């Protein structure tokens, strides 16, 4: 299986090429081709979960071939635990996004699916590339299809939102390119070899001054994508105006590009600068958490509310990451997956009523749980997952982030906790306004509940939400090596100190995290606040499925 990753990578592109051959009048055939491609793409990626060896070396399924030898750029693919999980998330969300568009898209259907599939290849490529130039190539490739998805199939203000998204991201990423080049030339001056090999970059000890500038360049590229305050302003517009599938992909996968970028490049390659930038990063993250949540609380537009909740949640992700300890980073990655699942689902949920009513005004809705009970149930679960209710995925991520942050700095943890509380507030307020009460708007009286196809888009997300909430150990285990690798670079003295605190044994992150999670799940009936926090130590309880009966 030398070309396993290439196979996953290019399946969507091949599907897009096949679509070119289908006459554009035959919309059913186009939809089928797109759905089959996306499903095959997902099925092909499933073995990655099983074949990936969590105990194995750094990068697996490595493929390498000369691409532009005179520059030193290679076609170099490989995955570790972090990218494995993100790739699986991408293929799954891609599949769901394609399926969810069946009825929603009626114009220019062929182009729509072609753009969606090209986008899919771009995202997968970015997660797989271990060559920085190749990564950048895929990173930029994503821009154009997304621009069209928003610009052609979006709602009212789509032209403005599309160009805003495009230019914001572009400015960030071209500056990042300069950072990449600076790194490239520095690496050459040390090793004498021109190369964009990320694994080699991670072994460099770049001088602090240069690190500082490169970090700043990378920061602009990644922070726009995450998006971190104050670079987030494109996001509410883009999310609100994008078609449902576009929002789902944007929220579930594309925002992860930014956090992935930090984890894969900034932290391990520029450890000194990373530590120096912690105060700024934490401050921006905290502002993002609180500000995003407060603005979400005030929204009258359903989709915009979910968009701002993204800003807040991604702030949590960044905060956990910049706690710079294993638990925090693990939590950050898990929370990225959670955000993909829950926010992706929430956008689908908005999309379903939007398809029926063509409005996102919250005041138009109310009492939907009576008309659409299944829909309301799904929405409830996803709301709880977003809030971080125990037994659901969001809880694990938030818990680990809070724990990691608490170890790093108690004041930060306080703000993170406040973010969780606010998150519960705006989500529950949203749920209450739309689902509870009487059906006062006559237009809502005969809304159809979820169709089988629509339910099918939620089913995998529901399964994942419970799986990750009840038994996160397989996920954590896969992240272990990646996280340790990052920590070894960015926070060298962390490991020994922690080991001493843990009675001479150095339990792996997964064990610590899983145990804490399990203990917490069973012992403390926690409300959504996530406080009080347990001390971040591990005992020798083997990671076991969490006990059932967590409060609901």
């Amino acid at each position: 299986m030398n070309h396993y990753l290439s196979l996953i990578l290019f399946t969507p592109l091949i599907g897009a090429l096949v679509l070119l051959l289908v006459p554009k009048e035959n919309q059913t055939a186009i939809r089928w081709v797109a759905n089959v491609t996306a499903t095959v793409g997902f099925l092909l990626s499933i073995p990655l979960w099983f074949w990936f060896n969590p105990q194995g070396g750094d990068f697996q399924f490595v493929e390498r071939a000369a691409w532009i030898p005179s520059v030193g750029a290679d076609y170099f693919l490989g995955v570790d635990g972090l990218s494995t999980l993100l790739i699986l998330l991408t293929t799954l969300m891609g599949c769901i996004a394609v399926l969810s568009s069946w009825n929603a898209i009626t114009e220019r259907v062929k182009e729509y699916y072609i753009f969606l599939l090209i986008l899919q290849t771009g995202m997968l490529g970015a997660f797989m590339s271990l060559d920085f130039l190749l990564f950048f190539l895929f990173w930029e490739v994503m821009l154009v299809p997304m621009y069209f998805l928003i610009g052609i199939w979006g709602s009212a203000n789509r032209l403005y939102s599309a160009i805003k998204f495009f230019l914001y991201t572009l400015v960030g990423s071209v500056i990042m390119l300069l950072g990449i080049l600076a790194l490239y030339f520095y690496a050459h001056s040390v090793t004498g070899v021109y190369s964009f090999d990320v694994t080699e970059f991670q072994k460099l000890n770049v001088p602090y001054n240069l690190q500082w500038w490169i970090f700043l360049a990378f920061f602009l590229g990644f922070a726009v994508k995450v998006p971190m305050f104050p670079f987030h302003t494109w996001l509410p517009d883009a999310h609100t105006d994008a078609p449902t599938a576009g929002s789902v992909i944007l929220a579930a996968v594309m925002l992860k590009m930014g956090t992935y970028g930090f984890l894969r490049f900034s932290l391990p390659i520029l450890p000194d600068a990373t530590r120096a930038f912690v105060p700024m990063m934490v401050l921006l993250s905290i502002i993002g958490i609180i500000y995003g949540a407060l603005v979400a609380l005030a929204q009258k537009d359903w989709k915009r509310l979910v968009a701002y909740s993204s800003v807040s949640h991604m702030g949590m992700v960044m905060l956990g990451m910049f706690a710079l300890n294993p638990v925090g980073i693990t939590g950050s990655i898990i929370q990225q997956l959670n955000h993909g699942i829950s926010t992706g689902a929430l956008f689908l949920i908005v999309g379903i009523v939007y398809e029926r009513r063509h409005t996102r005004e919250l005041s138009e809705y109310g009492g939907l749980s009576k008309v659409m009970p299944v829909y309301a149930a799904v929405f409830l679960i996803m709301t709880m997952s977003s809030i971080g209710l125990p037994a659901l995925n969001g809880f694990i991520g938030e818990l680990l982030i809070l724990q990691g942050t608490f170890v790093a700095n108690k004041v930060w943890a306080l703000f993170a906790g406040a973010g969780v509380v606010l998150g519960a507030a705006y989500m529950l307020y949203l749920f209450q306004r739309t689902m509870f009460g009487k059906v006062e708007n006559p237009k809502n009286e005969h809304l159809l509940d979820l169709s089988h196809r629509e339910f099918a888009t939620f089913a995998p997300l529901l399964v994942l939400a419970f799986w990750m909430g009840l038994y996160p150990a397989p996920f954590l285990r896969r992240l272990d090596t990646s996280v340790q690798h990052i920590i070894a670079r960015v926070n060298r003295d962390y490991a020994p100190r922690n080991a001493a605190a843990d009675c001479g044994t150095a339990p792996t992150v997964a064990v610590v995290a899983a145990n804490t999670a399990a203990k917490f799940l069973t012992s403390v009936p926690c409300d959504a606040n996530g406080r009080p926090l347990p001390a971040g130590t591990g005992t020798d309880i083997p990671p076991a499925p969490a006990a059932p009966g967590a409060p609901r």
Partner: protein
Amino acid sequence: MPAGIALSDFYYILPELVLTGGALLLLVADVLLPRRSGNALAWITLLVLGATAAALVPFVNTHVEVSHGLLAVDRFALFFKIIFLLSAGLTVLMSVRYLETEGASPGEYYFLILCATLGMMIMAGGIDLISIFIGLETMAVSFYILVGYIKPSQRSNEAAVKYFLLGAFSLGILLYGMSILYGLSGTTSLRAMATLLAGQERDPRLILAVIFIVAGVGFKIGAVPFHMWAPDVYEGAPTPITAFLSVGSKAAAFAMLLRIFLEGLPTMSADWRLLFEVLSIVTMTAGNIAALTQTNVKRMLAYSSIAHAGYILIGVVAGTARGVSATLIYLFIYLFMQLGAFTVIAVMRRRDVAGEELKDFSGLSFRNPMAAFAMLLFMLSLGGIPPTAGFFGKFWLFSAAIESGYVWLAVIGVLNSAISLYYYIRIVVFMYLKSETIGSEPTVTAPLALVLGVAMVATIVLGVYPRLLFEVAEASARTLGGVAGLAAAIR
């Protein structure tokens, strides 16, 4: 310097001879063939260009000076000659329908295109001020006529007069700079000059000469503040000529620029690098900002072409082998994307519609999806978005700048490329996101389709797998005298 020309010199200028002979043959054919045989003439022109290209083949590995140092036959010249021949060939294909629509006679038109190509080839090979100037004049005079070729069109006439007057003026300035150089060194040979002028870096007369030559060359590449002619000329000239002017003439001017400054004045590099650095920043910024507000696509591309001169100057400022190879790579890639974009404009030209305004492009993706997709590709490439060739062009220019320590230049460059996307995307918005249609359906004839096809394939292939281009360009850049020496001087 011994007098007389050896027989072997004729062998080395075989491509130029073939081209000259072919051009004369074309004039004869124009007289002999019946009227209205534009297609036949176009085919003869292509044949001549093809024969010239074939005549280049024996000299792939040659590295000699011909006619006592008037011309150099080396990889550097070869690389540019390929650019010129390709752009001339594509221009001819683009012209067939255009000339029919405009009702202009094709004979002299194709002859002048060949003449201009000949001039460019001499410019690229010239390592002596005299030969460079002769090449430049041959090219410039041909273009003066070509720009005003649509006789009934007032715009075309105005453009020609403007181009002629300003061109003559700038040539005067250039010539004045060259004469100062000759006066100071006593030679017109660039390579001899480099040794003779060593150690006189602070001579104010020499600095003056550099300034004059920069100004003269700046006019030809369309650098701000010597760009005033460009928008009007580009807008008024026949579209294929605009394309040829913005690709071929610009590439030739860059060849001349690299020859003069890297071969002849490497010792003055501190001065001309500073001048070009300032020119580069001003040019790309002013070009892009002016392009933002244009509603005529041809004019917008004129400003974009100005901005591109600014980007390409980054490679010259870097001045290293990487910088020169980046310049070559960019010019080669620019050939396809710029010519391709103008071809789409030529497609839009119908009897009833000029097809140059932004609104003419609205809904093009519904009416002619292939042309719209081609334009999308060229716009993304001009903006530097992967996986199109334009990305690698910019990538290599910026990396050359960073390697040579011009980080701020690279920063300004990337910010400019972000600005430029706004107006490139605006065309895309009209083509894909608006649906009102105007005038008759634009149709693509076979020659136009061929140009579009070549340009699209090149834009994509070079954007995904640029390996060969990079290697060839690097090898070509290294044959330019002065590159190695300059690189050493910088360290």
